[in-house]
């Protein structure tokens, strides 16, 4: 390849528009290598994939707890509810509630859980989360989260894309667009699932109107970890290599004849695909992890095996330069039988999530890895009875709920904001999901007002027209 061809890559708008992801970087690196140039391991591509200022966190692991976990049973103790237990609240107190299913006359449900003061910080955490209790000093608890939406799909969309309506790019897509990826053999934004899909479906990791390169790539629980990763049946690695080599020779001829840099980019992508074919299975091979590490995540044990595997995989991905890993666990939507449902989900996720934080810390990775734990909204302090004979549950609650963050420049052992004594709404330092998004971008070196993409004549951003950085979260 000559310099002219190489240059035309750079002048082609369609290419440059997509250049911010790692894929673009690698494409260029390949082109440069093909041009006889040695390049240092490409990090973020210049220009698009570059933070606005020095980042605190380089990678994000979002432990997405879809369906809305109950904050007053896990993170935000409300002894004040006991006095009202089994009684409806006066109408004056419930007038601001946004409810999905129940009526404001529903009866108060005090939490049956016990909270303990944990660690040096004395942060109060529920007995359903014994492992997280031991990590209390590493996490930053936000008890004053707020969102505008009271239903799952719009709520998840709001949390992930900043808008209740489908069609906008999600946080992971914005981050890979803004920062690129450091991985040469894996996608920049990967999605892992416990098996059950969330209400938002693929719109939780969509690239929206950003180029599809930035969409989250689902790693699958069964079959190929990435769709179409393995060769068709009967095709050996040698045959695949031979096929790609032949393809490269043919495409190279086309590149020479056409001078179209898109051909070079395609060739680079076939090479990358081939590398992914070995890199992705290597990710899943935990044989180089010690037994104590695997045990700490609950791998090989139930009910933690699946989620533990995902958490460990997330750490391994971050080690290999994947920018954003999203773990979807669904569903915490306990309209009925709350106490048992909660126990089940906590038993699945508590140990792996706590182990992830501890493991990252022990490896010195927590400083540069931001971990976020939370769902699209919280749950009501009023109980819900859905069916005849049901055990009680809780309805959706957007006015005040909890999420926690760890590492990546956040303040450990710290509680941000509070809700009133009946958990009706955030009263102190309310943190809207747009504020959380602005803060996450800030921690990752991006100014949420400057990370924009023009679509239909408007410069869109993750935080729409609002969002403030929550200083109280920052270390």
């Amino acid at each position, binding site marked *: 390849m000559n310099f002219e061809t190489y240059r035309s890559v*750079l002048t082609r708008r369609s290419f*440059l528009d997509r250049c911010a992801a790692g894929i673009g970087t690698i494409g260029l690196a390949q082109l440069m290598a093909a041009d006889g140039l040695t390049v240092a391991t490409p990090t973020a591509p210049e220009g698009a994939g570059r933070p606005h200022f020095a980042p605190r966190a380089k990678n994000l692991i979002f432990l997405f707890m879809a369906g809305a976990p109950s904050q007053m049973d896990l993170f935000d103790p409300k002894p004040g509810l006991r006095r009202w237990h089994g009684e409806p609240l006066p109408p004056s107190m419930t007038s601001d509630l946004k409810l999905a*299913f129940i009526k404001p006359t529903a009866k108060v449900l005090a939490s049956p859980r016990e909270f303990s003061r944990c660690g040096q910080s004395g942060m109060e955490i529920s007995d359903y989360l014994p492992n997280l209790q031991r990590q209390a000093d590493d996490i930053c608890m936000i008890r004053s989260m707020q969102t505008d939406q009271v239903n799952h799909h719009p709520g998840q969309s709001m949390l992930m894309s900043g808008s209740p309506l489908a069609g906008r790019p999600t946080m992971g897509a914005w981050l890979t667009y803004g920062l690129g990826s450091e991985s040469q053999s894996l996608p920049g934004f990967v999605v892992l699932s416990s098996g059950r899909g969330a209400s938002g479906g693929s719109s939780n990791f969509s690239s929206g109107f950003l180029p599809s390169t930035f969409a989250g790539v689902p790693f699958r629980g069964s079959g190929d970890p990435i769709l179409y990763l393995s*060769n068709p049946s009967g095709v050996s690695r040698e045959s695949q290599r031979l096929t790609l080599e*032949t393809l490269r020779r043919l495409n190279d001829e086309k590149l020479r004849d*056409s001078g179209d840099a898109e051909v070079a980019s395609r060739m680079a*992508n*076939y090479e990358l695909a081939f590398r992914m074919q070995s890199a992705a299975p290597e990710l899943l091979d935990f044989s180089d992890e010690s037994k104590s590490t695997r045990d700490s995540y609950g791998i090989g044990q139930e009910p933690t095996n699946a989620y533990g595997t995902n958490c460990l995989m997330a750490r391994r991905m971050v080690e290999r330069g994947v920018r954003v890993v999203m773990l979807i666990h669904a569903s915490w939507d306990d309209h009925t039988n709350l106490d048992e449902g909660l126990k089940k989900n906590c038993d699945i996720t508590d140990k792996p999530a706590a182990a992830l934080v501890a493991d990252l810390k022990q490896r010195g990775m927590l400083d540069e890895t931001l971990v976020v734990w939370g769902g699209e909204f919280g749950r009501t302090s009023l109980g819900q009875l859905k069916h005849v004979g049901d055990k009680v549950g809780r309805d959706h609650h957007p006015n005040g709920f909890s999420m926690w963050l760890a590492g990546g420049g956040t303040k450990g052992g710290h509680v941000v904001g509070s809700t009133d004594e009946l958990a009706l709404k955030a009263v102190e330092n309310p943190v809207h999901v747009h504020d959380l998004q602005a803060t996450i971008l800030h921690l990752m070196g991006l100014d949420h007002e400057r990370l924009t993409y023009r679509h239909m004549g408007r410069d869109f951003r993750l935080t729409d027209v609002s969002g403030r950085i929550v200083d109280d979260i920052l270390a």
Partner: protein
Amino acid sequence: MICFPNLFGDCRTIGRRAMRLLGLLQRRTRAASGVRVPSIQVSARIGLDRSQGVRENTLMRRPALVLGALSVSWICPAQAEVSFAEQVQPLLRQHCVICHGEALQQNGLRLDGSEAAMRGGNSGPAIEPGNAAGSLLFKRLQGSEGLQQMPPGRSLAPAEIETFRAWIDAGAEWEARSETSDGTADPGHWAFRPVRRPPVPAVVGTHWVRNPIDSFVLARLEREGIAPSPQASDQVLARRVFLDTTGLPPDPGQVVTTADYDALVDRLLESEHFGERWASAWLDQVRYADSDGYEKDSVRPHAWRYRHWVIDAINSDMPFDRFTRDQIAGDLVPGGTTEERVATGFYRNTLKNREGGVNVEEFRFEEALDRTNTVGTVWLGLSVECARCHDHKYDPITQKDYYRLFSFFNALDEIDIDAPLPGEIGPFLRSKPHFDRKLEDIYARYDVPRLMGPWTEKMLWASENPGVEHEWDTTWDILALYLDDGQRILRTPPSERDWREDLALTEWFLRNYSRVTSKEDYEATGFKDAVKEVHTLIDGFPDVSRARAIQPYAGGRQSHVHPDGKWDETAEEVASATPAVLPSIESSGAEPDRLDLARWLVSRENPLTARVTVNRIWQEYFGTGLVATSDNFGLRGEAPSHPELLDWLAAEFIDSGWRMKHVHRLIATSATYRQSSVPRDDLRDRDPSNRLLARQVRLRLPAETLRDSALAVSGLLDPKVGGPSVRPYQPEGVTDLSYGSSVKWSESAGSDRYRRGVYIHFQRSTPYPFLANFDLQERNVAECSRGRSNTPLQALNLLNDPVFFEMAQGLAFRVLAEMPSQSFDRRLDRAFSLCLARGPSESERGTMLDYFVRQRALLEQDEESARAWFPFETEGIPERSDPTVAAGWVGISRILLNMDEFITRE
């Protein structure tokens, strides 16, 4: 500061691009010399300052030198060009007009219109054009000379104040956006001016011109001193025009010569596959899908009937004015036909939120907004939705304008109708009595009436006594969500219900009775079995096709402005009307209705519809529209590269009676279209984005075309046109990420697996992976142009997807079957000709032969794999005893289907 003609887009884009270039240059330089180029700050500044422009080509030619020059230029005082509409007006609107606008005129000053702003306020003129330092406005923004700084308490950023300085110094042009006191705007923006047919320009190179398109293109090229490219080779041109018009590759051996090219285009435009290819482009815009979207993402079993209509309409060259009328107001056409009502399925493509607990009215409102936005984008090329919460920041569309437009769509009722296709009515009528008897029988056996009567009563009671019995409240609420019109049907006495309504409600009752009864009691009813029996009965019943349509909401509905776009807050009442900046609408009654709207959209006076539509056709043939921002013709859109050509085409479109095929024919037969797509050295610097059209472009095929091409060459394609959606193979687990993993994908049987991509069932929450990998968006909002990404996931998809491997097997089978006793060379010729419409070059032949030999050698040690590669029996092939031969052809086929040239139309 250097300012260059804005050939490459706005300054900011250039800045961003230049920043990347600089970074790369640094790396190159570093790598080559080991010396670090100290210019990071420079590049960073380029990226951040939107008012600066840098010519990238100059940069590229003399890297080191230009970096130096650039640094110097930075020191010079900047005289940046400031766009009033893009930079100044948004600031005024955001920060100033709240106190100096229509509602409030602090100190007598208004800044929401040119006239008033120039007049100034109680302190005299605020703006002195050409003299920022002497302008009161600027001093106030700075807070200089002891004046109170504006806006009070939150002064503008220094860069924003600089923007005002530059704008005032440059003459304080209010541009075309001057708004008069009554809020109407001067339609000075090019896209708002009426379409006038421009004269076809005279050119020197008349021999090149095949139709007026070429005159417009050549006139510009001659001005620039650039010659057009030679015509593409016959083979390239044949493949191009087949793929562009029908989405299918040329028949093998199809030779196209210049002499019969025009006749070929005519034939292709008459092909029934033309409508399939072009329906895709329309379906993107109207966000067609086979499911509801949102959490439940329920399947829409009748959605395909609208797609069927679109394909038919395009194939029959339905004039675009009628195409518009039927979709916008087919239900209002006097004496309207079923097909006209089917067209209103356009509205039903909007997402539907059936999630438990949602507020029905809130999402009805969202649907009406979505329809407003879609009409704005599809027909007008305007982002009207920006005016949902406030006046549009860039375009002259007020919030009131927006809700007036919204008012057309605020009173629609959704209704599913019988829309039989030919041949369906007879069997339906013959089977119906039997169906009714069987249904009655099921109801009787499960004692349905005895339980359903009291249930109905209690539901009605719960609807009037909310908050007493929660499970009944919930059941009543979700009836509205899960069953279209469920509450209305329940309120209708059984004897007055339509048979379908009664069936739907009864079926819903059978499934949902469990919500208000104990598990044991529900089990005892046996309703689970009853549901199965009902479903079996329905599945076996030769029902007529149904369609999703709309009709006017009988009650009517008063529309309002909604402050901040909130569904539950209303301000002043508004009546249906079109944006004030555009020509006024003629009303047939007291208030214009959707028929009037449809007429207005395609009226000769409407400056947008024709331009927007021809531009979108153009972009499919050239990769980019004459207006590159085909989704936005507003002030933030890009100006057309060839304004006269755009207007000529728009006028021609209208004058032809809105015939789309006429526009297709003009484009596809033009010399401009026929040019070679090979990039030219002399154009790389001058026209890197090919805006001057001195050549064609290579374009990666759209997802459907890629699939269809591979299916066609492999001989697997089932070319049946129209009908319900199909579900080809997809790996297990793809639907796991749908809500509760509830989406079911049951693979279609037989040749339905090999139908064209346009028929693939589109499930919004878990789209078919191949389509998503190749840039089909989620169809949640109007999409006016597809991306053309180039990713490793695409490589994996084409290499390893069993569907594509099967196509490679099919192609190998076809080559061997068609040429049973031929040499390698003859077979290779055939395979190349099928896939690429040309034979292999000598070096390609060598490469493929080399591969064939080595691949066979690899498989010789592994006969089992060789058989897996080619599991078919072929008669009459001499080498059939050696499975590696056939396997080798599968390998060659697989390579062919992955070649860049196959994936690309040149």
